């Protein structure tokens, strides 16, 4: 078991012939992900790496391959359209890697995806990986190892860091999910925590939040009220100055409860373990797996 993706994941890649799309499609195929098609308008009929059929539209790709998942590597101004196209074609799980998508675009996209009964992960996220089974996105496969810790994070590279430290300490992962750093995203912490709670293979969860918004506080509340599995949390941005956007569009201290201290206090109040450094996850998780 795992969450969101597994051996049954059949994937199409939107933007398969671009620099990032082609590089990471090769990596996903090497990892064993079932990449059944790609979409690049104007290149329909061609093949990627002589194996994967390319289509002009997502509708064509879904009709021909029956794909259930899509990953998007298109430029920011085309990302909203790509997500809408995937949802309209009946894709049930859509992962948008693209960074820099205008936030107002997402206000149109999110309700449409919801109405279509699909799940969106991202945008501005590294995707997800179920070690040993499937990876969708850009998380390096070699840093992961199968196991029973669920990982969820707002950041890409910080996720890699923690997963890498866990793997080095011999702690495997059930699924690692990057939910992305944008203020409006398709999947939030609670969605992932709820899925991990249901997943029999997951025994504990490592969660990495950051400054900005109050998603972490909501997650802490969820942990307190709805989770039987232990959750360890970390917040990035303790040294971030207020009012400045720290790279991620959503990482800005403004309004109530947006600071690292506020979020850490919420974790503690919910009885969660709190990692002060990424490396602290190792000990805290180990103690909770015993």
């Amino acid at each position, binding site marked *: 078991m795992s969450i969101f993706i597994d051996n049954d994941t059949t994937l199409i890649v939107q933007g398969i012939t671009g*620099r*990032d799309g082609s590089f990471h499609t090769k990596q996903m195929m090497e990892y064993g992900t079932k990449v059944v098609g790609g979409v690049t308008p104007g290149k329909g009929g061609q093949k990627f790496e002589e194996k994967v059929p390319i289509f002009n539209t997502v509708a064509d790709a879904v009709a021909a391959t029956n794909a259930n998942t899509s990953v998007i590597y298109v430029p*920011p*101004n085309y990302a909203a359209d790509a997500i809408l196209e995937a949802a309209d074609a009946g894709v049930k799980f859509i992962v948008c*890697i693209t*960074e*820099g*998508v*205008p*936030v*107002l675009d*997402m*206000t*149109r996209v*999110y*309700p449409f995806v919801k109405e279509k009964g699909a799940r969106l992960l991202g945008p501005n996220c*590294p995707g997800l990986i179920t070690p040993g089974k499937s990876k969708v996105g*850009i998380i*390096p496969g070699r*840093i992961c190892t199968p196991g029973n810790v669920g990982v969820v*994070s*707002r*950041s*890409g*590279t*910080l*996720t*890699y*860091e923690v997963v*890498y430290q866990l793997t080095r300490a011999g702690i495997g992962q059930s699924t690692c999910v990057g939910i992305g*750093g944008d*203020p*409006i995203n398709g999947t939030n912490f609670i969605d992932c925590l709820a899925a991990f709670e249901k997943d029999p293979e997951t025994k504990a969860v490592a969660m*990495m939040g*950051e*400054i900005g*918004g*109050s998603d972490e506080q909501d997650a802490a509340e969820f942990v307190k009220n709805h989770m039987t599995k232990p959750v360890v949390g*970390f917040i*990035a*941005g*303790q*040294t*971030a*100055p207020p009012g*400045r*956007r*720290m*790279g*991620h*569009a*959503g*990482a800005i201290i403004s*309004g*109530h409860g947006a600071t*690292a201290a506020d979020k850490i206090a919420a974790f503690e109040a919910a009885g969660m373990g709190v990692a*002060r*450094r*990424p*490396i602290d996850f190792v000990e805290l998780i180990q103690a909770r797996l015993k």
Partner: protein
Amino acid sequence: MNIHEYQAKELLRKEGVPIPPGEVASTPEEVEKLAAQYGGTVVVKAQVHAGGRGKAGGVKLAKNPGEAKELGQKIIGMTIKDLPVQKVLVTPAADIASEAYVGIILDRVSKKPVFMVSPAGGIDIEEVAAKTPEKILKLPVDTRYGLQPYQANRLGYFLFDDPKKVKQAAKIMTQLYAAFMKNGCSLAEINPLVVTPAGDVVALDAKMVIDDNELDRHPEIAALRDESAEAPSEVDARNANLTFIKLDGDVGCVVNGAGLAMATMDLVKYYGGDPANFLDIGGSSNPEKVVNALRIITADPNVKAILFNIFGGITRTDDVANGIVTATKQNPLKVPIVIRLTGTNEEIAMKILQENGFSASSDMDEAVKKAVELAKGGQAA
């Protein structure tokens, strides 16, 4: 991206929002001239990207052109929250019967633009929200349909009883929403929205924040950026496509990914050091980005050690290694450098670095500790 009050007002005027006349001045003489042109009492308002301008003494009334010139001398050149005032807005003073607050924010929870309006205007809306939440109406808008007339009316009726004022207010809501959507805002605010003794509803102040992700498709908005209101190193970084925020410490940080960049700064602090900056070289990095990053960081005289922390995913670590080699060949480093990199193409990267005389580690804590020690002038372990 923040824009100034006078720029926000210009964008709102384009949509038809009633706003009293006003012009921007950058010398006391210009202030005097504008005051004479308007006649009567004028307001001189500092144009800086900071709230609380009034409390800081950046907004003052002048009864005649002579007073206006004196105010110009005082306000132009003052600093408000570390930001230098280089321009002031001069506008005729308005008689005010009542003040209201109208704003739209992009709300993370409802995932929609949300109107916030309150008859308690002219003051800090966060304070109103905390103390008297019943005085605020929040109304989310589905951007697929836009602001509907009934919604604009509802907002108007929350502010006023008199149907004439409600009608004016509802029209302003529609115009504010249009400006918000058209210009790719993450915030648009009229505070205060006032009623004049004659019963006219007008906007006396305006604030807009533009979503940086919108600037590519709104070059006319991007052109409003006031680079003089920012640290020069941050302007330089943005032009090189880097996300950079200058801080006060001495450990220069070059990291890929915003979350890891923040975690790296936090770890520098954890081990007793102080980060000199936030710098995210982003994904899809090419060697050129690293060259620019090193140039910007080494230009800061406070920086006593440089710390690279790269975890390759979409970023290829060999690109970063090549960038370090190229940059240090162009400009040999005067401060020690600690390199930590792992992930995509790590073997190639390590080989490139070794061939060029650099040592690199794959452990984050080890690298951060070493950089903190070096910045303090100590010997690295």
